[in-house]
């Protein structure tokens, strides 16, 4: 029983990272119908930005660690959002203006991801970075179950971000504009909605979440390397699709589902089987529900 609860908590933490990244995928996809494959690498860039910001504050300013954390969170999110918006402006917008085929935009996104990964590797070298400790580790134990304060923060951050995004998309004006763009891209500019600003806002939201995920990930697993974003990014994308891409609830549920599956497989089988089992289960889910858990089947008019 204790082992079960412990694994549930681990799955929640692992799923939180997937959910945070999958939310970014889903937002961009929901508005643009574009699979932003650079998103996993934006997460990696977020972790590195957090590293540099935190070490700068600790080194030059001599702040207390909790103050550094309070300053690092917003700064990381803002700077990472800047990276995401830059990619959108340089790479995606001209293609969108030209009306290029969707898949060419996807390939461009893949290439942007490769540039981020390998540019990082080329500039900073292959040596791994050690993230500084910003939180004093507090371990709460209930019986045989132990929870660190960081784990609780991660889980709550994921839930808070999900609620915030749900609120923005369903209750605010700009969220209505987003839903409008995904519904009909051609009628929306005629209604006087600045389509480019809405898309930039979407990228700001998605990349900001990726930056937050990068910071939390770096605090939980304090070793940074340039390729850390690739695998997590692909898996989070798969989680988003299993939930039903373009749906915020779907991304959230899908991320946690993938986290639970992976932690469960590692708990029961040798850890080398993780990918095999996780992807087989996801394939079965997609066989049963071809458009994901929350996805709505698109009807084609004839």
């Amino acid at each position, binding site marked *: 029983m204790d082992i079960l609860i412990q694994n549930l908590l681990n799955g929640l933490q692992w799923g939180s990272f997937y959910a945070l990244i999958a939310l970014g995928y889903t937002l961009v996809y929901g508005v643009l119908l574009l699979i932003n494959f650079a998103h996993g690498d934006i997460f990696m860039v977020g972790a590195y930005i957090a590293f540099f910001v935190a070490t700068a504050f600790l080194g030059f300013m001599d702040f207390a660690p909790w103050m550094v954390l309070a300053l690092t969170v917003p700064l990381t999110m803002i700077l990472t959002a800047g990276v995401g918006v830059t990619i959108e402006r340089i790479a995606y917008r001209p*293609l969108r203006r030209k009306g290029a085929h969707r898949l060419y935009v996807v390939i461009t996104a893949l290439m942007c991801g*490769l540039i981020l990964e*390998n540019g990082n590797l080329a500039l900073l070298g292959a040596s791994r970075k050690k993230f500084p400790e910003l939180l004093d580790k507090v371990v709460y134990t209930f019986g045989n179950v132990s929870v660190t304060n960081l784990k609780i923060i991660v889980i709550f951050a994921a839930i808070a971000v999900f609620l915030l995004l749900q609120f923005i998309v369903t209750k605010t004006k700009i969220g209505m504009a987003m839903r409008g763009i995904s519904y009909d891209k051609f009628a929306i500019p005629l209604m006087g909605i600045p389509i480019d600003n809405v898309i930039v806002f979407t990228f700001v939201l998605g990349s900001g979440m990726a930056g937050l995920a990068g910071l939390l990930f770096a605090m939980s697993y304090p070793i940074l390397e340039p390729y850390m974003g690739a695998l997590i990014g692909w898996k989070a994308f798969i989680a988003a699709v299993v939930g039903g891409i373009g749906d915020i609830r779907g991304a959230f549920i899908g991320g946690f589902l993938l986290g639970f599956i992976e932690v469960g497989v590692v708990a029961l089988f040798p850890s080398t089987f993780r990918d095999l089992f996780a992807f087989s289960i996801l394939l079965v889910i997609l*066989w049963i529900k071809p458009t994901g858990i929350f996805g709505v089947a698109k009807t084609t008019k*004839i």
Partner: protein
Amino acid sequence: MQKYSFNIGIWAMAAIVVALSQFGALDLYIQSVIMFIGINIILSSSLNVVNGYMGEFSCGHAGFMCIGAYVSSVLSVMFFAQDKIFGAPILPPDLAPLGFPIIVIIAGLVSAVAGLIVAIPSFKTRGDYLAIITIAANYMVISAIENMDVIGGPRGFMGMKRVLNAMEDVVDIPWMMIWVILGTLGSVWMIRRFVSSTYGKGIMSICQDEVAAEIMSVNTNKMKMAAFMLSSGLAGVAGALFAHVLGYVNPQSFNIMKSTECMVMVYLGGMGSLGGSIISAIFFTLMLEMLRFIIPAIDTGLHFLHLLPDSYHLSQVWKWVIIPLTLILLMQFRPEGIMGNKELPDLFPRLKKFYKFK
């Protein structure tokens, strides 16, 4: 005679390349580059069947390549070489030149059957959901092979060089070059025949509008199955050749990066253009190899001009920054790829005089 000049030219070129590598005019490095060009042509043109002609988005091509590579390696080592795991060769090694093409074909068939993992879900799913299934299939194949300790698991598998040596003991000619050229020409010929047949028309109609195609009595499920199986089968052939050219396979060399390379070649060449695939595969491979020499040259130049600090040297990693940048720029200025949706004779109609196509 004029009608056949294209075919004669191709075979003459192949014969010249083989002869040059036989008499040592090409060093081993250039030979391996030519072989990799051939393998990349197979990969890009076979992925073009699904991604270009059928308009689906498959991004797990390297998974099938992995299956082909492993099946062929295990079979050839088992049959024609002395090995620690499989013991003595089952057949006499003198038969290796005859057995090798059969093994490559078997690897292709096994990969084609593995293509059913993707083909069967594609009846119901479409678009991005299918993309996920292909990525998942790629991961599953790599993960499954990493968990097989008999064939080395994550450490990889070697011993194919001994099979090559067995072939060269029979007749001393550049066998691998011959097999790669034959495989490349055969694959391109097969795809060309396939897409210009009734089947190919059916596949292109799925790309245009699946519902309309279904109504016009195209059996879409059958077409999808054929396209996926042909694509993955040829990927398996490419993998088999790749394994024997390198002499060593490792599951991680067939990960998503390799799939990304295949996709880049397809979209660089243009969707639904076989000529584009071939041109882009040649261009891409040559660019990869040229940068090996260009980057150190740039490095010394920049240090000579004192633009870089002395402690920092440009490494080969910059290759993977320059290539994506080139591609992004190409996409900005020519979003449909090098050839777009056309073949070479569409652009230069006079070429039609030089080849006969039935």
